[in-house]
């Protein structure tokens, strides 16, 4: 009941609550108006469901001049490793090779292959080994990197990598079905990339 009351209050004040300070119990409202209208025609007694855009913070717009810093959001399924961090440069392992990203980069969608991603902030360089994923570079100098699995390079154990590489090479040699071959191939690729990362 109290949820309804707060929603009515927020609706009666304004649609955009950016200037008003929102209560902590206030519920965001669906932003897409055509959806809300279509919904009201079909189910007038039910409140329309939320959509993900109402839960997101709005993104900065494209600046006219190139900004000095790149904003990086690096997310993994179980954690947001970096969110909104301002850095000078990132180097990402795209399928076409290592790609350097500076502020003002052309908007790009890049698919990632297993390799090292390094984040450069002044003289600080933080390296992660990334298994695979996607990277979106937007016109407003925001870089979104979504990886399935990423570990800082310090946490990788070299002896385990060697063992894994040997194991998967052997599996690849003895694979019979296409599925087994594909799985072994992936294992070999990832382990050799890790090996290269540790040595290089």
């Amino acid at each position: 009941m109290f949820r309804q009351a707060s929603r009515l209050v927020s609706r009666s004040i304004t649609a955009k609550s950016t200037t008003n300070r929102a209560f902590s119990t206030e519920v965001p409202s669906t932003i897409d108006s055509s959806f809300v209208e279509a919904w009201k025609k079909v189910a007038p007694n039910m409140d329309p469901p939320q959509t993900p855009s109402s839960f997101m913070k709005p993104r900065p717009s494209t600046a006219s001049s190139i900004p000095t810093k790149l904003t990086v959001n690096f997310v993994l399924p179980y954690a947001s490793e970096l969110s909104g961090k301002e850095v000078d440069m990132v180097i990402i392992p795209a399928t076409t090779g290592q790609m350097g990203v500076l502020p003002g980069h052309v908007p790009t969608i890049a698919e990632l292959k297993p390799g090292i991603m390094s984040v450069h902030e002044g003289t600080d360089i933080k390296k992660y080994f990334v298994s695979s994923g996607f990277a979106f570079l937007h016109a407003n100098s925001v870089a979104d990197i979504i990886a399935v699995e990423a570990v800082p390079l310090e946490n990788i154990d070299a002896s385990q990598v060697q063992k894994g590489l040997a194991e998967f090479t052997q599996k690849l040699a003895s694979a019979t079905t296409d599925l087994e071959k594909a799985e072994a191939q992936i294992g070999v690729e990832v382990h050799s990339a890790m090996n290269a990362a540790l040595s290089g």
Partner: protein
Amino acid sequence: MAMSILRREGRRLLRPIAAIRSPLASSDQEEGLLGVRSISTQVVRNRMKSVKNIQKITKAMKMVAASKLRAVQGRAENSRGLWQPFTALLGDNPSIDVKKSVVVTLSSDKGLCGGINSTVVKVSRALYKLNAGPEKEVKFVIVGEKAKAIMFRDSKNDISLTVTELNKNPLNYAQVSVLADDILKNVEFDALRIVYNKFHSVVAFLPTVATVLSPEIIEKESEVGGKLGELDSYEIEGGETKGEILQNLAEFQFSCVMFNAVLENACSEMGARMSAMDSSSRNAGEMLDRLTLTYNRTRQASITTELIEIISGASALEAAK
């Protein structure tokens, strides 16, 4: 005569409480053998015992749900950053008009969790009405036993896939991506609409619908312009064609959004169960208070009856002397 009136009084007080009369009525009749003292206090005592047990059980269930909630809540909040880059790139288009929509309904396997499953089913049905039309069709993919039970009754023909026992093992990304893969392989779709309860707080759960478009629709929309119009300005790095990258992108987006949705739904289930069990134990406590009062009243009534008997017997003897 006075005794029978008092006996009737006691029974009248108990009538609003005792719902099941037949097995208990036999113990009423036994009171003649055991003496007037046991006038239906046995009945009330049994009822009090069962209500107290129920209270203990619901309190325990609340504790269990609270501890499970603590465990899942951290992971759900950490996974919230996962779908945001996709929405920033591709936008959020719940009102998109497509030929084949698939509604993925997430619900729980176990019950006693309040109204969250029925709200999800109501939203799914409304989405069906919204998107069904002369050339358009809507299919359901149901995750969870509870929604399956409800939807089977009327929408049996439209259900293409059901998945149960998702929460038996702790959720992880690999398991959810296998599930997403299954759905993508077996169901043809232009747009996937995932309906789940988003965990806003321990007492508030918001039904949410997240839309994932197929790569063909993304290409069509980006050519037409509008919300996805900016997509064309993005260069594609890697892969031979734009179509290939968009295919991988759509699949990755689906598995990421599913992962977050499944975690949020699990959190909402635990939170709803906590509040349901909490109100249940509070109700049981109130019921116990009322029963205790009634018990004391009937006990005191029977004691008074016995006293009257004794005193009237004594005074009769005195008068006879």
